[in-house]
Structure formats: C-alpha cells, structure tokens
C-alpha cells in the first residue's frame, strides 16, 4: 500500500441530486477524498444545483446522462422515492451506485434496484455510515472475540429533530420517522450480531411536528438467533435541543453490558450571540469514512462493503413496522417476502 498507488488511480464519482440533508457533506467529501475525482453534480432543481456545484468548485450537469458518461460511480442524495430511477439510470450505463438510506420507499423499488445493478454487473451500496464509528467498531470487536458472551438484548435509539422539507412528505420519503430512523440501528443490529430480524412490533404516533407522517415510533424486534431489541426512531428532539439528535446502543451480553453513544464526542457551546446552547461535535466524519471505504472497494475490485441487500433488509423492518402499527400486533418479516 504505497501512497502513490492510492493517489494515481482515482475513482470518478458524481453526486446525483442535492435534495437530501446529507448532500452538502457528501459533496464536500467527494471533492476532498484523495482517491476520488469528483465529476460533478446533477440536480433536478437546476437553481439549487448550480449554486451548490459552484460553491464546491465542481461542474453542474443539467443532464443526468452527461454526469453518468463521466462517472464510474455515483452517490445518490435524492429524495427516497427517486433512488430507484437514478439507480436504474446508472446501472444502465454501467455506473456503480452508493444510495442514501433508506434504500427505497417500497420493497418493490428496493428489489428492482438490486436486480438492475446485479444484471448490469455494477455494485450497489447503501449509505450506513454508523458502521464506521470507532465506538461501534470497538463494540463489534468485543462481540466478535466473545468478550460479552452471547448478546441477548439491545436497546437502540436514533432520535432526531424533524429534518424538514420532503422528509415529512409521504410520497417522497415513504413515511416519517420510522422510514428515516429505523434503518441505521437495524443495520447495526444485523451486522454486529451477524443475525437477521424475523419479527417486528411497533407503536407509532404523529403528535409533534404537525405532519401527515409518523414522528414518534418505538419498534421491538426479534432476531433469528433469539436476541431481541428495540429502536426509538422518533423525531423527538425539540427545536431547542442542543443538537440534531443521536444514536445510542445499550447492549446486554451474557458476560457484559456496553453503552455506545456514537455522537457523544462534542463540546458544549453556550452562545450568547445566537441565544442558545449547541453541541459542537468533534467526532470523526462518518460519511467521509463510509464513502472512502466504498471507493476503496471499487478501486480494488471488491464488492460494496455495505450492499443493496443490506439496505433492503433494513427497509423490510421499517415496512414491517408500519404494518405492525396498523394491525396493532407483531408482524413476521417472512410475510413481506411472499
């Protein structure tokens, strides 16, 4: 692994859509990672896209095909509902895809994305950056070397503020807090425990942000090997909260208990000018690590580290949660696959 090898072969990557709240961070990451050559930005809103592209010193493409021509891979930061059409367009051109989460708004769309990439022979990755957290990696190591014994239960939380805009639009987002914030913890559970969710119970509410979609949700999951877990995916952080939200895991193993608070690394900033108190995070940039790992895998000819299948499995849990809440009873994941 000499430095020249890393810098001479760069992956040509473009960003598709600036609709997602993570788009600015992703564009900055793509513009700065040494193994990536940023090929530009496409956005369905040209005004917004022009400004963003100029700010990052990269070309704006009014035409998606033009960006795909120049790219070996794209990162999709569109609304959830648009993931499918952008993925299919990329696959048709032989371009690899890293899609924001959730993978899609319906299982049908998610499966179509996976199939399009498989038949085109391109990689499909899902953006689950929390796997890149040093604290989560340490937890993974503790579990893998048996320090906790068998993990029996996990209480996970991923609360946040309402992100605003289309995140509250059922058609564009596919749902509310459950669609937005179930998938990160679900993915961590599957990956950390090397297990699959088999059953989902959920209670949902819409009481906080005056939305047509859910903003409160508590899920309880059963995993195949017998562990159970819960996820608080609520948009429960008020406007006055000092940060956007967070992600925590309380892991109960037969030989030990672990608390993970992924975004705990933060200064408390009491700001008289703004008249508020905020957390100033100093933790590592998880999105940058995730994109970097994805690019490295493609450059080495390896599969995407976090696949489209991983995205689909997490999406299934969110879909099952909506079904459970509607029926007021637990839902077996297998019934989604028939």
């Amino acid at each position, binding site marked *: 692994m000499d430095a020249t090898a890393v810098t001479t072969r760069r992956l040509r990557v473009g960003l598709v859509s600036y609709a997602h709240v993570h788009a600015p961070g992703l564009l900055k990451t793509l513009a700065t990672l040494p193994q990536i050559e940023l090929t530009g930005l496409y956005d369905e809103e040209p005004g917004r896209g022009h400004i963003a592209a100029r700010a990052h010193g990269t070309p704006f493409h009014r035409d998606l095909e033009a960006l795909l021509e120049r790219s070996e891979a794209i990162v999709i930061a569109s609304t959830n509902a648009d993931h499918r059409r952008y993925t299919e367009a990329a696959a048709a051109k032989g371009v690899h895809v890293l899609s924001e989460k959730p993978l899609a708004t319906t299982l049908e769309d998610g499966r179509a994305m996976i199939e399009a990439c498989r038949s085109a022979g391109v990689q499909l990755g899902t953006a689950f950056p929390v796997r890149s957290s040093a604290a989560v990696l340490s937890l993974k190591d503790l579990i893998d070397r048996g320090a906790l014994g068998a993990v029996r239960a996990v209480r996970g939380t991923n609360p946040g503020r309402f992100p605003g805009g289309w995140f509250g639009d059922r058609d564009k987002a596919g749902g509310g807090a459950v669609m937005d914030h179930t998938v990160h913890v679900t993915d961590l559970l599957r990956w950390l425990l090397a297990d699959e969710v088999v059953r989902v*119970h959920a*209670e*949902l*509410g819409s*009481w*906080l942000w005056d939305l047509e979609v859910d903003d409160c*949700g508590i899920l309880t999951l059963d995993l195949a090997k017998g562990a159970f877990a819960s996820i608080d995916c609520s948009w429960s952080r008020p406007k006055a909260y000092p940060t956007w939200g967070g992600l925590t895991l309380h892991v109960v193993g037969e030989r030990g208990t672990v608390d993970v608070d992924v975004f705990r690394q933060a200064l408390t900033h009491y700001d008289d000018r703004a008249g508020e108190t905020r957390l100033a995070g100093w933790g590592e940039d998880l999105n940058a690590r995730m994109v970097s790992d994805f690019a490295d895998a493609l450059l080495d000819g390896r599969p995407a580290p976090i696949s489209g299948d991983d995205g689909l499995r997490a999406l299934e849990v969110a879909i099952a949660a909506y079904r459970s809440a509607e029926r007021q009873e637990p839902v077996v994941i297998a019934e989604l696959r028939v």
Partner: protein
Amino acid sequence: MTMRIGVIGAGFAGGTHARACLGIHGVTVAAIATDPVEHGRKLADDCGARLEPSAASLCAAGDLDIVIVASPTYLHAEHAIAAARGGKNVFCEKPIALTFADGRAIVDECARAGVQLAVGHVVRFFPEYRRAKELIDSGALGKPALATMTRGTFPVGDARPWYLDAARSGRVVLDLMLHDLDTLRWWFGEPARVYGRMLGGSGGLDYALATVRFADGPIVHIESSWAEHSGFRTTFEVRGDVGLVTHDSRSAAPLLTQFPERSDVPAVMPAPALLETPYRRQLREFFRRIAGGEEPFVSGREALRSLGLALAVLRSAETRQVVVWTPPL
C-alpha cells in the same frame, strides 16, 4: 401519642424501612419478625426493638399500630392479611403481591378490617419523578407524546436467589419494571395496551423491554435491567409537543468520591443525595395521613392496578402478543 411499628422482614426493604422510621418524630419501631428469628437480631438492636418469634405473633401483638410488610414478595399476602386481621394498619412493600388474586385478597381484607393499606411505590416520592410530574401536569411540556424510562442495577439474584425464582418474585418485571409502570400510570393515567419482551434469565442475567401505548399518546418505552453491573442507574425522558425533559441519575449526582483503595460496592437501591430519603418521606407521609384519617397516597387499589399492568407485560412477554389493558376495579 406515639405510633408503634412492627416490621416483618430484615432484608433490603425491611432494613431500609425500619431505619427510615428512626428519624421520624412520634414513631417507634417496637418489634421485628424474621424467619429465622435470629436474622432480625442486628436490625432489632439497631432500632431498639424486640424480636418477635414469628410474623404471626407480631401481627397479633397488642402494642402495635402499624405493620410494615417487607418479607419476600410471595409472602406478602399471608403477612398483610394477618396484620389486617390483627387490626393493624398495613404498609406493604411493592409489589403488593405476586398474583392479582393475592393482591385483591390483601385489599379486601384491609377494607373488611377497617385498616389503612399503603403500598411502597417509592418512586412517587423520588424528587426527580415528582418534578417531572409537576412539569407534565402544569402543561409545560404540552401534550405528552413519547416517554422513555430505564431502570437498572447489577444482578441482585446472585445474593438473593428468591429474586430469580419466578414463583417467588416475578423477576425483573414485577421488581424493577413495576416502578416505572406505576410511575407512568401516575404521570399519564391508564394506557390502552402493552407489548413486552423478556430474557429467559440464566446466571442472574435478567432484562426486559416494554412498550406501553396510550390511545391518543403517549407511547412509553421501558427498559428494566439486572445487567447494569456498575450499579443502580435510572433515566427518563418525557417529550410533549412543546418540550422535552431528560433525566439521568448518573449525571445528577452532586457528590462523587474517590479513594485510593477500591472498595466500592455497587448500590442495590438508589440513594440520591438528599437530606430526607424518599423511603423516609414515603413512610412519614403514610403516618401523617393515618394520624389525620386520610387515605394513603398510594392505596392498595392503586398498587393493584400497577401490579395488573405488570402482569399484562409478563403475559405479553410470554405470549409474544400485544395485551390490551383494561384497568381492574
């Protein structure tokens, strides 16, 4: 006039309640009963109380006004009923009983005997939970939408095997989770349905999660753990549509001590730094109400409902189905 107290049991609860009485004016701990008798020797000496030969003889004693039932949970019904029949007012440690039928029998017997019955849902006397209730009741949080409550301590069953015997304690749901189920009823009223999951429990590890749903909100999520190896910890957060309050006992400690010799033993029960402990406040309030002829703050009926809700969580955990909650009585 002095109130004379008899205490059945000298374990965590018996010792805590008897010692809490020592600081209350006008109250004397006069008798202790334990099985075997000698188990109560130290506590009796500390309180200046006599050792009764049995719970039955204590309940029949002519010089006692109040009996504190702090025996293992599976014996509460036998002891509380004996105390009521002996004409004593009863303070019963929570849970009121292991089964709804036993709890009902205690409530009925106390009513029949015309004695007062209070149950030790002490969390209602913890200042952080009272402060939260004030904020909820005042409307400062708006309409409650979501609450999370956690309660954990180290595996207590290692030292007291009866805790881990479902036939004698009801395990983590009837022991720890009951506190939060009672508290959420006190905060929000009667829920609509519950869903629970619980570990089978081996080697002292016991842990449960529950989701309690109120028809039009809030959703309450509860974690109860005997796998908190560093000692007692409680947290809660309550989110209404205009505000959020959060609590973590670990960051609410006003005093932290460190010594070069490591002799710290994890706490079995929470011990907030307060001039008057919640345990004493709970008993003082009960004694005051008895003296004034008032209903207890946490009545037998109230405790019975909280027990019923805990049993509903257990039933949900066993059947792995949602259980609809219909408040009894």
